[in-house]
């Protein structure tokens, strides 16, 4: 809204229509309505958030302000879905009244966007949105865990920025939940040690239980046995959740062409004693081999993959001590579960559900060219990309139809730049890749940049974006631009302090337009495609196609 009567100090006097009030955090509260002070007082005076101390918070970011603006009270009736498995929203919940049942079977209630037809789901999402909050008799029949008063849930996905692994359903009428949005949770985690310990403790405990269950390695094991197994497994984190800045610093510090492998946290060195099998819970890891003091990639692992299974199998067979046949390094951050050798032998190697998905790209099956491609993909952290824009430069004639299409779909302003890092004939352009782990949304003060709950695409809500550029500087790929905002007359808008009114801008996969990303559809030479880079076969096909 233009603010009439504002005059810029000094000799600059601008037309009133170009002046706007600079947006601030909490201009719009989460859920559009601030929590009533009675609720805030109740939350502060009780143990709802644990031993959280308001004195830990700075004056300009008080605990009551965080609760008022970044939380909301959500009322549910019995059987109502709080969130469904596969959805991408990242709030943390605390039960205030009533109860919640969390389905123990991950992935049983897939929502739109998590299926094989994301586009169809995107079209249907306006209709499907209505299914949230509805009573679902099927879901209530699933094996569930009941959570009662003041118990917390949803923290695993909030911390790892992953889709919901289970479904939560209200278990009583008038169930009241405190929904803490990610920006609020981030502040609580940052300022309150008590809250952080509570959340991390829950995260570690639940991560092991959920991780073991989700992996499918123990599919035929009874729940009580699995609980006992979980007790023997340990949880480990390598690297940092907020890995983007570390990566950017390292990239800036290293010489051109210097390999990044050496900078990545080592999980286990090749040849070292391997007492446990590793199950990757979240993040990515690089599998390496070392020859003549030269360490190189032979594969990468992501959530659900295991490392060390073959070595443990061989050691049990020959009665020797297992040693890591390859090295393992954390790429960004890696959460893993250590499964002791005797459990692997007893439940996995003897079980029918043994999985062969250990090292995705084992040597012998990968050509030299593919290993270089693998290095390119892992070194540049493109393994994070679920929807990267890749251009085949042997087909691209530079007609810029893709850029024009993007502009046409976004009020005349393209959301990407047709340049990027290249490997052979493949250029990964500077367009948002809709990461598996979107680090750009960690520090957004308002939660304006978020994942679409249904499709998982990373999108920006222009109404709540305050133009602080936090996301833009956090993106390791420089794929978010800060753009000036123009008024209806085309003039650039200016904040009352004289600075240009900015908003973050990035590819949104043409959300709201039918037919998918306009860039891909507009390419007449089939040079541009949006792909999940983790699908190395597809990438290799793209590289070698005639």
């Amino acid at each position: 809204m233009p603010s009439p009567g504002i005059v810029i100090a000094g000799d600059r006097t601008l037309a009133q229509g170009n002046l706007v009030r600079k947006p601030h955090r909490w201009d719009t509260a989460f859920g559009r309505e601030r929590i009533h002070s009675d609720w805030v007082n109740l939350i502060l005076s009780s143990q709802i958030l644990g031993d959280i101390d308001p004195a830990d918070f700075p004056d300009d970011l008080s605990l009551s302000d965080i609760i008022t603006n970044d939380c909301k009270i959500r009322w549910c009736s019995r059987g109502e879905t709080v969130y469904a498995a596969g959805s991408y929203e990242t709030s943390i919940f605390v039960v205030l009244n009533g109860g919640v049942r969390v389905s123990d079977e991950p992935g049983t209630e897939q929502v739109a966007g998590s299926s094989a037809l994301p586009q169809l789901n995107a079209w249907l999402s306006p209709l499907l949105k209505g299914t949230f909050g509805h009573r679902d008799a099927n879901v209530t029949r699933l094996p569930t865990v009941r959570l009662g008063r003041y118990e917390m849930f949803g923290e695993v996905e909030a911390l790892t920025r992953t889709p919901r692994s289970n479904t939560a359903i209200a278990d009583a009428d008038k169930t009241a939940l405190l929904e803490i949005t990610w920006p609020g949770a981030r502040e609580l985690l940052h300022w309150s040690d008590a809250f952080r310990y509570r959340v991390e403790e829950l995260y570690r405990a639940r991560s092991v239980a959920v991780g073991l269950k989700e992996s499918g390695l123990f599919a035929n094991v009874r729940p009580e046995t699995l609980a006992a197994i979980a007790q023997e497994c340990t949880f480990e984190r390598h690297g940092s959740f907020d890995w983007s800045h570390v990566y950017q610093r390292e990239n800036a510090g290293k010489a051109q062409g210097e390999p990044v492998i050496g900078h990545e946290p080592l999980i286990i060195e090749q040849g070292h004693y391997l007492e446990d099998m590793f199950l990757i819970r979240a993040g990515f890891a690089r599998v390496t081999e070392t020859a003549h003091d030269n360490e190189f990639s032979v594969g990468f692992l992501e959530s659900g993959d295991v490392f060390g299974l073959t070595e443990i199998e061989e050691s049990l067979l020959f009665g020797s001590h297992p040693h890591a046949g390859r090295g393992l390094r954390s790429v960004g951050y890696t959460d893993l579960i250590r499964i002791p050798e005797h459990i692997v032998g007893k439940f996995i190697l003897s079980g029918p559900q043994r999985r062969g998905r250990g090292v995705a790209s084992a040597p012998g099956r990968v050509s030299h060219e593919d290993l270089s491609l693998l290095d390119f993909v892992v070194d540049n952290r493109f393994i994070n990309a679920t929807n990267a824009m890749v251009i085949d430069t042997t087909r691209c004639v530079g007609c810029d139809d893709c850029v024009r299409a993007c502009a046409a779909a976004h009020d005349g302003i393209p959301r990407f730049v047709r340049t990027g890092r290249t490997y052979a004939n493949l250029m990964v352009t500077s367009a948002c890749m809709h990461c598996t782990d979107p680090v750009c949304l960690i520090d957004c003060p308002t939660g304006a940049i978020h994942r679409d709950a249904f499709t998982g695409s990373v999108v920006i809500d222009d109404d709540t974006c305050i133009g602080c550029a936090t996301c833009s500087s956090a993106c390791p790929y420089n794929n978010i631009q800060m753009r000036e905002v123009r008024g209806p007359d085309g003039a650039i808008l200016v904040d009352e302090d004289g600075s240009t009114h900015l908003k973050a801008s990035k590819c949104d996969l043409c959300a709201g337009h039918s037919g998918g990303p306009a860039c891909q559809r507009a390419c007449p030479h089939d040079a541009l495609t949006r792909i999940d880079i983790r699908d190395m076969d597809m990438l290799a096909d793209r590289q070698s196609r005639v």
Partner: protein
Amino acid sequence: MVGIARNTLVTVLVIAAVYWSIGFYSDALRDPRFLDGWILTAVMVAQLLFHIRKKLPASPLGRAATWLKMHVYLGYVTIAVFLFHTSFSMPETTLEWALWGLFVLVVASGLVGLYLTNSVPGKLQQQHGEQITFDQIPTVRLNLFREVDALVLETVTPDGSSEVSDFYVNRLRGYFRKPQHLRAHLRGSRRPLERISSEIADLERRVNAPDRKALSSIRKLVTAKFDLDHQYTVQGLLHSWLFVHIPATYSLIVLSILHVAVVYAFSSGVR
């Protein structure tokens, strides 16, 4: 390859069907030129749809790549129908000559464009590895110019002269300022680069060690500029064929409408 074979087969079948229809029409003692004329018009209009698709880049009208394929294969059908329509003979009147000339121009420029778009990006990739975007070439050129300018300045003695700077002013300044040797690049010749390199080699024999070092760096920049000019020429060619194809197409449409009007105005008897 399967796709190409399938599309070619369909194109051949369509051409055969048109040929059969014309024969059938002719056997009925009707003037086949009306039939093949209208078929030709219809196919040309269908080809124009690709142009419309390009003008609506964000529209959900299917993939432009599919439209381009259709445009190309319909182009082959157009050539065949045009030959049927003209009875494989040369034009007689001025209007017919204009139509014929424009049609040939549109087809020829289209085929040249097809060849260029299919071959040039691959060759550029092979020769240069990383491609520089056409819009960025002037900036890269300016940076090279500044870099070489700075190198030469370092060789200038306090009295303001040096053999390197003289050579630069007389021989290289113009080379770095603007795109050069466009014809050589079109031919794929590297002769101009060899000539400059040999002149630098001559100069290297006569100068002191620091100047020799500067000349070695300048030689690398000369090669970089030559490669940049090659990219500029070839990428320019990739863009420029459309400046013939599109205006010629519009002119052909106007003349075709005139042709239809004239035919109907002066025709009589069986159609």
